[in-house]
């Protein structure tokens, strides 16, 4: 792999006596899309601001191999101009929309025809050309967000730092932009660090995902890896692995482990030695659910009988809690829920593959 | 006459001249006539700074003014004795009058002896407004109280404004009080005042103006030549004639009486 475009060592930020950010090492690779997810107040925006050289942090930071000062002083200007930031809250300047979009370019000395062309292009792309002469004070939430996006993209930077950039956009626009973003990134070699609360956004865009918990990067890895194999119970809980079952490895052979959970045996792909206490994580969408005739039992491994304890309507999906000795959360489409006529009390069978169960050793 | 003197053949080396003058000469407009005359004749550029006689002499003492036009004879004598001035010439006089409300509660109307008037005012405890600003007028008034043997300062009926004549006249008018004023200022403000001239004509009410050339040793920046030129000009026949005629057109009577060369 080539040299990381941004590399941080021992980055720390303390606010009001509390360590809000504490990252021993972080590398952002050239051209990748790194998505940061995490609970509110976990330090995502703080990390982004440190990377953007806007917030002084303890530690060392290099940009394309060059050491940079983490204090937002003059020495950082050169590097700041190679990046662009979309903040969580679009803070527009008290001038026209067009001027707002022009500002970043003007500050970098772009003038004349080139300036006009790029402004028009990006106003167009974000669907705000008709708002060009308006004052930001009169914009709707989504319109303001688009201006904020256009303002960052127009400078066509090497690194884009985006803090929940699509939050207040309507769905069709959001999907369109996500598509656009992917193709733009594929063409140029722009590096993106993106903070989001939208799991689908993360899955769709990310090359790698970092999970931020209480100021620490609890896990940072390729997207599939994070979602399949969360590094800890907390990560698992946060990224939506709702089923974290306490058990113990009974035996293991050829990378397949048999785990005892509440008296039932589960099969999982794992190299862990027998007798290791473990947490078995199974993502709700990896579990299939089918109706079962009353009284019918099943002895197959990873195929458990139970009954529906509770159903939460989550829009296009239902979150079904199945009691099979222990509670197991299953996600099914609204559609199939209706078809099965599922209701609390329904007798069901749940099943998942050995590859869907991920084991974390526990202390 | 000498007013037709041709301008100086050669302009002086140091044309800038600071004249510290009493407010009355400035406010009456007399200097507005005299100074352009002088400047035309000699090529000097005069900066007349209108201040009270007290401040004028303080400026002289520090060498901040080149020449003074003052009307506080006692202080002036001290000033000369202190070696601050080198030449003091009598220029002109006008007179002080005692003014007061029409009702005249102290009954001083028609009196011609200032001392008597002051005694009556003090006796009746009628309000009296003093300038209290250490100006020539103020010093003169204080002297008259002293000569009358009265300690006015600190009495409840004796008010001090610490300000110029115009403001003091206004205060006296509004408070229906007595005050001592130079005739010129009173005449200029008469129409807005509820005050009448009650006592006038006493010799002790003469207000004498001298021009003093500041001791050039005070500061190496003093324009001594200019000071001497202005001093000479003020007592020249041409200037003296202008002084004698000034104010007749507006008030029907002169405001100042030329005194050059007369004994003190």
């Amino acid at each position, binding site marked *: 792999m080539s040299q990381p475009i941004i590399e941080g060592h021992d980055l720390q930020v303390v606010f009001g006596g509390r360590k809000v950010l504490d990252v021993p090492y972080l590398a952002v690779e050239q051209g990748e899309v790194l998505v940061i997810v995490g609970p509110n107040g976990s330090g995502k925006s703080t990390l982004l601001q440190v990377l953007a050289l806007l917030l002084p942090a303890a530690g060392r930071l290099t940009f394309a191999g060059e050491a940079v000062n983490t204090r937002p002083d003059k020495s950082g200007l050169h590097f700041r101009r190679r990046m662009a930031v979309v903040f969580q809250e679009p803070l527009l300047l008290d001038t026209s929309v067009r001027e707002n979009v022009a500002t970043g370019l003007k500050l970098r000395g772009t003038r004349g025809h080139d300036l006009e062309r790029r402004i028009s292009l990006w106003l167009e792309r974000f669907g705000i050309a008709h708002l060009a002469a308006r004052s930001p004070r009169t914009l709707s939430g989504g319109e303001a967000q688009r201006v904020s996006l256009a303002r960052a993209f127009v400078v066509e930077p090497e690194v884009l730092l985006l803090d929940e950039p699509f939050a207040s956009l309507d769905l069709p626009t959001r999907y369109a932009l996500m598509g656009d973003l992917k193709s733009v990134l594929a063409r140029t070699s722009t590096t993106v660090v993106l903070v989001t609360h939208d799991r689908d956004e993360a899955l769709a865009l990310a090359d790698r995902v970092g999970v931020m918990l209480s100021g620490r990067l609890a896990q940072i890895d390729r997207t599939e890896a994070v979602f399949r194999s969360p590094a800890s119970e907390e990560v698992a809980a946060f990224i939506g692995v709702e089923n974290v079952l306490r058990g113990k490895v009974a035996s293991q052979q050829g990378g397949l482990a048999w785990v005892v959970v509440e008296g039932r045996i589960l099969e999982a792909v794992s190299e862990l030695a027998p007798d290791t206490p473990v947490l078995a994580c199974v993502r709700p969408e990896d579990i299939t659910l089918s109706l079962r005739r009353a009284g019918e039992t099943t002895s197959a491994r990873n195929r458990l009988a139970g009954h529906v304890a509770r159903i939460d309507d989550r829009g296009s999906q239902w979150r079904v809690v199945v009691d099979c000795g222990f509670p197991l959360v299953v996600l099914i489409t609204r559609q199939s829920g209706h078809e099965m006529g599922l209701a609390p009390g329904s007798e069901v069978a749940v099943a998942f593959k050995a590859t869907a169960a991920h084991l974390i050793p526990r202390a | 006459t000498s007013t037709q003197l041709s301008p100086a053949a050669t302009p002086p080396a140091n044309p800038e001249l600071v004249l510290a003058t009493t407010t009355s000469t400035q406010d009456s407009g007399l200097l507005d006539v005299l100074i352009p005359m002088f400047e035309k004749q000699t090529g000097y550029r005069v900066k007349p700074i209108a201040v009270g006689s*007290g401040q004028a002499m303080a400026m002289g003492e520090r060498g901040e003014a080149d020449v003074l036009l003052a009307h506080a004879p006692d202080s002036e004598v001290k000033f000369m004795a202190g070696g601050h001035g080198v030449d003091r010439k009598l220029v002109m006089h006008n007179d002080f009058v005692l003014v007061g409300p029409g009702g005249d509660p102290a009954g001083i109307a028609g009196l011609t002896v200032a001392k008597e008037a002051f005694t009556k005012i003090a006796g009746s405890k009628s309000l009296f407004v003093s300038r209290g600003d250490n100006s020539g007028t103020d010093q003169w008034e204080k002297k008259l109280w002293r000569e009358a043997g009265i300690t006015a300062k600190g009495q409840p009926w004796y008010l001090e*404004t610490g300000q110029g004549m115009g403001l003091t006249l206004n205060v006296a008018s509004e408070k229906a009080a007595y005050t001592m004023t130079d005739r010129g200022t009173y005449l200029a403000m008469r129409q807005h005042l509820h005050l009448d001239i009650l006592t006038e004509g006493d010799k002790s009410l003469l207000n004498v103006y001298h021009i003093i050339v500041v001791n050039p040793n005070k500061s190496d920046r003093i324009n001594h030549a200019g000071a001497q030129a202005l001093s000479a000009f003020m007592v020249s026949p041409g200037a003296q004639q202008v002084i004698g005629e000034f104010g007749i057109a507006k008030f029907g009577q002169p405001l100042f009486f030329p005194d050059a060369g007369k004994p003190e």
Partner: protein
Amino acid sequence: MDLVWDGIAQAFWLLVRGDRETYQVILRSTQVSGMATVLSVLVGVPLGTLLGLSRFPGRNVLIALVNMGMGLPPVVVGLLVVITLWRSGPLGGLHMLYTPQAMIAAQFVLAFPLVTAFTLASVQQLNPKLRTQILALGASRWQMLLLLLREARLPLLAAVMAGFGAVISEVGASLMVGGNIRGLTNVLTTDIVSATGRGDFARAIALGIILLALVYAASLAITTIQQRTRPS
């Protein structure tokens, strides 16, 4: 510069010796200007808020008038107040000329445009959506005004200071309407003028230093309040 040192020494002695007259003058300065400032805040803050928040025809003319008010020459104000309070003037019957009350009136006229203009500027700079937000919280008109002013408290304190600073250091109007009557209407500034007029520069400087110290004390108090209310 010897004069300045003389002045500092004299100021020190005036205060230490407890010169009764000096203390009286300080007290009077504070009272007159303090009262004038309080009155201008009572008038200027609501007026400035109103001008900042509402739109009505003629509003710009009014704002220009307020801005002009910041340039009201004290001597002209003094003159007009004097003319009004003269015995022959419309309010002559009040017998207010050459009293501290008259000085308060004149200083009020000088200070309230400053307070109004500061208030106007700071209220206008608030996020306009804040009003909607406050109304949505269930505020009545008055509650909204109070909350808005709390949001703008930083520049408002600057406004109070500007008003107080302008009038306590002002001399033209105080002189004309107060008359600088010793023991009755003389304040620090008018005393400075008369000391200067007497050529007593050292005393003038001494009083000037005392005045500066007074203003500094006031501004330190206000600055402390102002900067404390805003966490960094």
